[in-house]
Structures are given as structure tokens and as C-alpha cells.
């Protein structure tokens, strides 16, 4: 009696909550990544509304200078470390094992650890609001601004920030190890590297970046922590330390992190565009090599954030920054020619993917502008930079996240999202986004510095700031149809079936939501579009072939 083992697929007697909290299933963990990230997205969004409300008019209406600094610091911290990076890891978690035909990730329990470190980090950050002074040194936490000294960051708030970001970094490192081992070791028979979906390639390159760059951030933050708490002398010039050293070590992580924040989003839209254009991705191998090139070049451009320090070799970093536009340009052509003469289906995922293409293009071009040293000297720390980074991270990554959400929601839940509400959300978000961030280009050119709570009413910045604030609230409004859409769909959405989009990749070959361990049978994999081959008959006899037991469960 006691020797009878419970079959892995059998229902447990535990409650649903217990099952989710203790799960090591990559799909449930992926979904929890998404839920957790969206919670912090909304918190970060509220903080952004605080920033925009204060800036709507000259003068201080709502908050003090100190609170304003806390608002934009925590806005960026939540959005970068607890929304964009984790949510892309969440999509990777859900999709990568399905994409390569694996039963789970290589280390499921470590995967659960990676997930649960994130809400802990988020709670520590929220806790810092109750320490008297929340972190207010910007998300970059430059020294000496972030040192424990008058006019710096006094009190435990900044320490909580450091610990939280180290936890997020640890989560990223463990996640990267997991992704890399999964991708290198657990691909289904026939799934060669050059038959992997582009999404998997982007997660692979992202993981390499995370693996090599994140520990350097950890070392920077630990040195800052030692400076603040144990009288260390790394970054504080008073004790013989070097403030520029912090910037170097920080950006050595944080520039590759920019690609960590956008490459998986590029992967998402590279899955969406072929499916909704009814064509294969144009130039698969060029795309793969461009992704790898972005990853490699990403390690040689960090000091373009530091041109005005006078402590970096300008021609080298300027040249490398321009160079990185080349593989990015290759990708733009991949995407455009994927759609060229395709049979476009203007569903919500495609709309968001188009939003990504157009907005990321603007973000790329205004970024290449700033790579020119004289331009950068003029625009450094102005609203131009704020416009640029939001066109890349919001116009790029967040639109990509939305495309992925509408595309994979049916697979995650078994229910379709409403197309009507999705289109309303897209229109509101697209308009709100451009209203908010396009004027910031002009504000930056007109000399408005970033990270200020107040500005002169005679500087000529009033109208554009009001416009940006209106845009900010429009973005917030665009979240209402999204939440309503998800709520309605979960209660009474149209059942999705296995493959509602007539897609190409393996996740659509299993049920929605997929069972534990994902697949009973796999179609024969002879290209990067196994389901297309299957649907069009070329692989039909092989489709019912049972995968040998050793191949489906042994690794």
C-alpha cells in the first residue's frame, strides 16, 4: 500500500493555493512571474502618475522636493527591476520549455527560488517607504548621492534598496543558469539550435548577458553597502575612494541590462509577426546573428552613459554605440520583410507588435543621436534622455509584453481575450504613450533637466509638460480595458482550443493550458516551424509517432 507512488499527473488533495505556492512547474511559475510583475507595474505606474502630476504645472503643488526624488527613484526601480526584467523572464519561463519540446526547465526547484526572491525584493522596497526616507538617489544610486551622509541617503531606506536589488540580481543569475542549461541540454529530438524559435534565441542571449553582467552589479552594490555601513572607502572621495568607479561598475551591468530588457521583447514580436503575416520570419539566421552581435557589442558601450564625466575614452565608446545600431537595423529589416506581401491579420497581438516596431524605431534613432559626443554633451541629463529611454523601454519592451500577453494568454488560460477591448487598450495606450513621451524630446532640446520637481513658469515648458501629464493619465486609463478584459475572459471567455492562431511553434501542439510535463507526443521537428509542416501535410505520417520514453523524460 505504502509503496504505491502517486502518478505525477494525478490531482493532489492539497488546496489550489498550496499547489501554486509550492509548485515547481515552469508554467505555473511563469504565470506567477507575470502576476507579480504586473502588481509592481501598477505600483510603479502610480508613482509615475505622482511624478507627472507634480510636473503638470510650475511650482510645487503636491509633494516636496524630497518626496519627488523618492517618487521618480522608486518608479524607475519598480519598473526596471520588478517589472520589465522579471516579466520577460516570466514569458521565457512559460514559453521556452514548450518551444523546445522539454518537460520542464533543467532545475525546477531553483526556478521556484528565482521566482520567490522577487516578491521578497519588492516587499523590501515597499518597506523602505516606512523608514522615514525612501531611496531618493535615482535608480542609478550614484555615489556620493547614495552615501550615508547629510544631503545624501541617510537611514536604512537606501540599504533596503541595495538588498532588494541584490535579491533581484540573484534571481536573474539563477534564472540565467536555468535557461542556458535547459536550452543547451533539453531540446527535443530534431530541435537543433538553428530550428529553435527566435524567442528561445533571444532568451539564450539575454541569459548570457544576465550571467556575465548581473554579478558585476552585485559587486558594485555590495561595495556601496560596505561604504555606507562599515566605513568603507570604495566610492566616497572623502576617504580616498572614486565616485567614477561606481559609475563604471554600475553601467557595466546596466547597459547590458538594457538589452536584457528588450531582447526577449524582440523575441516575442518575432513570434507574433510571422504568425499574423502568414509567412516565415524573413532572414532567420541573420536575425540570430544580429541578436548575438547585440549581446556581444552590449558589453563595450557602457561608458556612453558617462561621456560628460570626462573620465572615459569618448571616440571608442561613441563608435561602439553607433555600431550597435547595425545589428538592430538588420532586425528592423527582418521584421518589415516578414510582413511585406504577407496576409496580415490585424489582431491585437499584431497591433502591439506594430506599436513595438514603430516606437522602438524612434527610440533607436533618438538613441543613435545621443551616441554622437557633442550631441550628448548638450542633451545629457535632459528630458531628451527620458524620452529616449521610454521610447525603448515602454514603446519597445512594454508593447512587446502586451503583444506577448494577448498572443499567449489563450495558451496560459485556455480562454481568448476580447479583440474589441484589446483594440481599445491598444489605441489608448498608443496615443497616451506618444502624448507623454514625444513632447519630452522638445523639452530636452529646450534644456529642461531631468529629476527636477519644479521649473520656471517663464521657461516655455508649461504646455508640453501639461500635455505629457495628460498623456500619462491616458496610459493609466488604458489599463482599465486590459484588466476588465482579463477579468471577463477568465470568467466567461471564449474557449481557445489548442491552436487559436494557426501558429508555427510547439507550444500550440499541446492543450491549453498545457498539462504537467507538457507533451505526450511531439510532431517531428524538421524546421523552425514544426506545426506549419504538420498542418500542411508534409510531416503527417511522422506526426503520430510516439517520442521514445527515454527521449521525452530522461533530461
Amino acid at each position, binding site marked *: 500500500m505504502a509503496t504505491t507512488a502517486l502518478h505525477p499527473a494525478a490531482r493532489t488533495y492539497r488546496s489550489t493555493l498550496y499547489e501554486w505556492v509550492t509548485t515547481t512547474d515552469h508554467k505555473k511559475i511563469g504565470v506567477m512571474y507575470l502576476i507579480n510583475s504586473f502588481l509592481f507595474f501598477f505600483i510603479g505606474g502610480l508613482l509615475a502618475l505622482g511624478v507627472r502630476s507634480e510636473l503638470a504645472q510650475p511650482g510645487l503643488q503636491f509633494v516636496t522636493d524630497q518626496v519627488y526624488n523618492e517618487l521618480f527613484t522608486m518608479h524607475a526601480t519598480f519598473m526596471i527591476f520588478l517589472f520589465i526584467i522579471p516579466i520577460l523572464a516570466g514569458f521565457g519561463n512559460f514559453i521556452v520549455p514548450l518551444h523546445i519540446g522539454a518537460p520542464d526547465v533543467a532545475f525546477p526547484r531553483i526556478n521556484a527560488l528565482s521566482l520567490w526572491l522577487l516578491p521578497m525584493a519588492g516587499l523590501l522596497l515597499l518597506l523602505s517607504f516606512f523608514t522615514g526616507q525612501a531611496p531618493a538617489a535615482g535608480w542609478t544610486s550614484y555615489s556620493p548621492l547614495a552615501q550615508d551622509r547629510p544631503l545624501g541617503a541617510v537611514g536604512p531606506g537606501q540599504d533596503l534598496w541595495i538588498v532588494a536589488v541584490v535579491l533581484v540580481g540573484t534571481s536573474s543569475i539563477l534564472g540565467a543558469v536555468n535557461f542556458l542549461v535547459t536550452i543547451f541540454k533539453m531540446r527535443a529530438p530534431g530541435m537543433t539550435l538553428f530550428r529553435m524559435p527566435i524567442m528561445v534565441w533571444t532568451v539564450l542571449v539575454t541569459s548570457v548577458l544576465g550571467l556575465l553582467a548581473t554579478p558585476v552589479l552585485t*559587486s558594485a552594490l555590495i561595495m556601496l553597502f560596505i561604504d555606507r555601513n562599515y566605513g568603507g572607502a*570604495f566610492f566616497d572621495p572623502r576617504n580616498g575612494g572614486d565616485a567614477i568607479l561606481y559609475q563604471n561598475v554600475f553601467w557595466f551591468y546596466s547597459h547590458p541590462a538594457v538589452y536584457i530588457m528588450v531582447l526577449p521583447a524582440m523575441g516575442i514580436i518575432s513570434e507574433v509577426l510571422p504568425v499574423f503575416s502568414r509567412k516565415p520570419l524573413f532572414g532567420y539566421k541573420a536575425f540570430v546573428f544580429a541578436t548575438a552581435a547585440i549581446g556581444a557589442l552590449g558589453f563595450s558601450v557602457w561608458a556612453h552613459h558617462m561621456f560628460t564625466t570626462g573620465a572615459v575614452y569618448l571616440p571608442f565608446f561613441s563608435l561602439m554605440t553607433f555600431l550597435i545600431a547595425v545589428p538592430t537595423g538588420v532586425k528592423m529589416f527582418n521584421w518589415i520583410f516578414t510582413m511585406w506581401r504577407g496576409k496580415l491579420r490585424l489582431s491585437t497581438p499584431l497591433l502591439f507588435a506594430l506599436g513595438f516596431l514603430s516606437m522602438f524605431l524612434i527610440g533607436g534613432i533618438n538613441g543613435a543621436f545621443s551616441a554622437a559626443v557633442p550631441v550628448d554633451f548638450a542633451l545629457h541629463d535632459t528630458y531628451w534622455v527620458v524620452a529616449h529611454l521610454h521610447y525603448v523601454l515602454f514603446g519597445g519592451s512594454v508593447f512587446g509584453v502586451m503583444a506577448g500577453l494577448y498572443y499567449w494568454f489563450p495558451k496560459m488560460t485556455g480562454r481568448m481575450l476580447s479583440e474589441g477591448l484589446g483594440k481599445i487598450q491598444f489605441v489608448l495606450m498608443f496615443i497616451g504613450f506618444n502624448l507623454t513621451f514625444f513632447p519630452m524630446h522638445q523639452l530636452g532640446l529646450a534644456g529642461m533637466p531631468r529629476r527636477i520637481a519644479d521649473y520656471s513658469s517663464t521657461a516655455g515648458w508649461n504646455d508640453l509638460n501639461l500635455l505629457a501629464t495628460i498623456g500619462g493619465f491616458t496610459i493609466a486609463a488604458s489599463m482599465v480595458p486590459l484588466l476588465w478584459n482579463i477579468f471577463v475572459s477568465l470568467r466567461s471567455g471564449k474557449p481557445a482550443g489548442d491552436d487559436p492562431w494557426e501558429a508555427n511553434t510547439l507550444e500550440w501542439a499541446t492543450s491549453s493550458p498545457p498539462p504537467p510535463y507538457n507533451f505526450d507526443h511531439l510532431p517531428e521537428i524538421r524546421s523552425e516551424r514544426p506545426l506549419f509542416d504538420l498542418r500542411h501535410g508534409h510531416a503527417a505520417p511522422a506526426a503520430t509517432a510516439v517520442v521514445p520514453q527515454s527521449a521525452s523524460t*530522461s533530461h
Partner: protein
Amino acid sequence: MATDSHALTPEDHSPVGGLAHDERGGISNVVLGMLLFITSEVMFFAGLFAAYFNVRANAPQWPPINAETGEAFHLEILPLVGPATVLLILSSFTCQFAVWAIRRGDRTAFLRNIGVTFAIGVTFLIMQAIDYTLLYGEGITLGSGTFGTTYFTLTGFHGAHVFGGANMLGVVLYRGLAGQFSARHHDAVEAVSLYWHFVDVVWILLFSLLYLLPGKSPAGV
């Protein structure tokens, strides 16, 4: 309990027991995962080393003057650090002997060598603790300028990694005593030995940097 032919262990039937092994004969998931994790650890130490070289390059002379005593900082190799270094290098050898032993299926030699490695790891930590106490007694502390900060941060994080590695060795020793490793199943031993070698290599670099690399005189002297 037949030993002449391969008896199936529970691991051969478990749906998850097989996950750690590669039937196609490649590197196992566990070992690859450890190698990747060590890569990230290398980058972590690279950040600290970069900081060390940076403050050293910025300083007018190295070692700098201790503000409290008015003399240049000085570190002694004897009596503690030199022997500790020799011991740690030896432990890399014993660790590798343990791996070779379990690959042959020789559990006795495996346990003996892992036990010695574990003991050396603990000894190293004790010697480091004594050394820290002596240094604090001489007024060289974490807060005494760039020299103290970099010295204690670099050696301290190395010590933390020795502590982590000794814990892993302890787990391997415990599991080995429970008979969980065999010539076929010993991924954990391979992975932990890699980590221990990494910790050893970091110490050799640190020792060369902090104790052997000549200092620089103030400009014009």
C-alpha cells in the same frame, strides 16, 4: 545485494531521478549548471578586482599610509597566511583525488579524500579568522581607508565562498557516508569539486595580488 551485475536503483525508475543525467553521453545538467554559475562568480570577483586595481592606481603610493599609525600598511605572510595558502592548494588535490576515486567506484578512498578536503576548508576558515583578529589588533580594519576596505572585502568575500564550498563539501560527505554516490551517480561530487577548484584559484590570484605584487612608491621618490 548482488554486486557483480548492475542492480537497478530507485533512481533508475524515478521520473525525476533521470532528469540529472544525459543519456546521450554529454555533460550532465548539474555539471553544466555549476560551470555556468562559476562563470557568474568569476564576474562577481572581476568587479571586486577591478575596484581594487582602480583604487590602487588612484593612490599616490601603495600600500598607503595608515592614518592612525603614520606608517605604510604592511601584511605578513607568516605565520598564518602562507601555511593557509599551501593547505588550500593541497585541498584542491585531495578534492580531485576524491572525484577520481568515486569515478572508479572506490567509496573508501572517496570518503577519505572528501573528509580531508572538508577538514582543510574548515581549518582555512579558522586561520583566516585568527588572521583577521591579529590585523584588527594592529589597527588594520575594514574602515581604515582604501587599503583596509579592499583587503577585507576581497578576502572576506573569498572567505564567504570558502564557507559556502565547505558547506557543499559537508553535504557531499554526509551523502557519501549515507552511500548515495557510485561510479554512475556522482554529479554532485563533480559539481562541488569544480566549485572548490574555483575557490582555490581565486585565492591564488588574491594571494599573488595582496601579498606578492610589489607596491608602488610615491611619485618622485
